[in-house]
């Protein structure tokens, strides 16, 4: 595929992620931080986020399935996930975490389990979207083009 077509597709895809609320302005901040001294910054941070999130989601699953649920621990984990998703601009995950924390406050196990499902879904969705976005970037670079800078 031609560079221009790939670049157009990249711009449109990125715009859709913002429009649909998967990403917010903080993601743009990350993109603007990337420079020649650290050309893979966004991919590195997002990869760290994926690893960290999967660990947290596993811990949350375990914690909520204990005989006696330690809500302090659950809340602490959700707080971490909320923080990192907010820092990379993963808006829908962040919002799902906010809801989750409310149910932690109430010590509501049923609702917390539902929230966990919701967070996992949002995580899965945004991971797919970002993987697609990064693949597009790689294709552009492979075709000899440069990645368009989003405003």
């Amino acid at each position, binding site marked *: 595929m031609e560079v221009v077509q790939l670049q157009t597709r990249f711009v449109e895809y990125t715009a859709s992620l913002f429009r649909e609320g998967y990403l917010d302005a903080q993601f743009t*901040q990350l993109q*603007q931080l990337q*420079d020649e001294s650290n050309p893979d*910054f966004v991919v590195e941070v997002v990869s760290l986020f994926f690893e*960290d999130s999967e660990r947290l989601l596993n811990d949350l699953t375990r914690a909520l399935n204990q005989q006696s649920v330690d809500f302090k621990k659950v809340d602490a984990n959700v*707080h971490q996930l909320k*923080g990192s998703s907010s*820092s*990379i601009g993963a808006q829908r995950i962040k919002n799902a975490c906010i809801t989750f924390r409310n149910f932690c406050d109430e010590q509501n196990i049923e609702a917390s389990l539902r929230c966990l499902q919701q967070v996992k879904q949002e995580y899965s969705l945004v991971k797919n979207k970002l993987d697609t976005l990064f693949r597009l970037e790689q294709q552009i670079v492979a075709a000899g083009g440069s990645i368009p800078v989003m405003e």
Partner: protein
Amino acid sequence: MNASFSSSSSSKGMMDHGDQPHVLAVDDNLIDRKIVEKLLKNSACKVTTAENGLRALEYLGLGDDQNNTSNVSGLKVNLIITDYCMPGMTGYELLKKIKESSVMKEVPVVIMSSENIPTRINKCLEEGAKMFMLKPIKQSDVKELRCQLMKYGS
């Protein structure tokens, strides 16, 4: 000498810190540490990160071994920026320890938090925090921080 911050990342006008101020950034969240490090580096700062209050104190030479009063890091720290919510020692507790130290109390401390709680903010400012920053931190926040740093000198 004009002390205002220019919009380029040049270090002209940095008076008390040599070329690049050395910042100690403390945060238990790995992603946040990486981001704050880059934000600071992009603003012409040297950065050391620590994952909790204890490590930060050790780095500053304020660790458990109080007989070791020398700054083990060797590199003078010009600013400490710390997250508020950390397991073990909170950013507030770290701030207090720094302000209690005769060696470190003049070093400006900035507190970051994802939660906008006025009583928390006031508590930190009263304890001597230079600034409070709401997460997620943006480039404009760091630029503002650099301006503030230069206004008040070291």
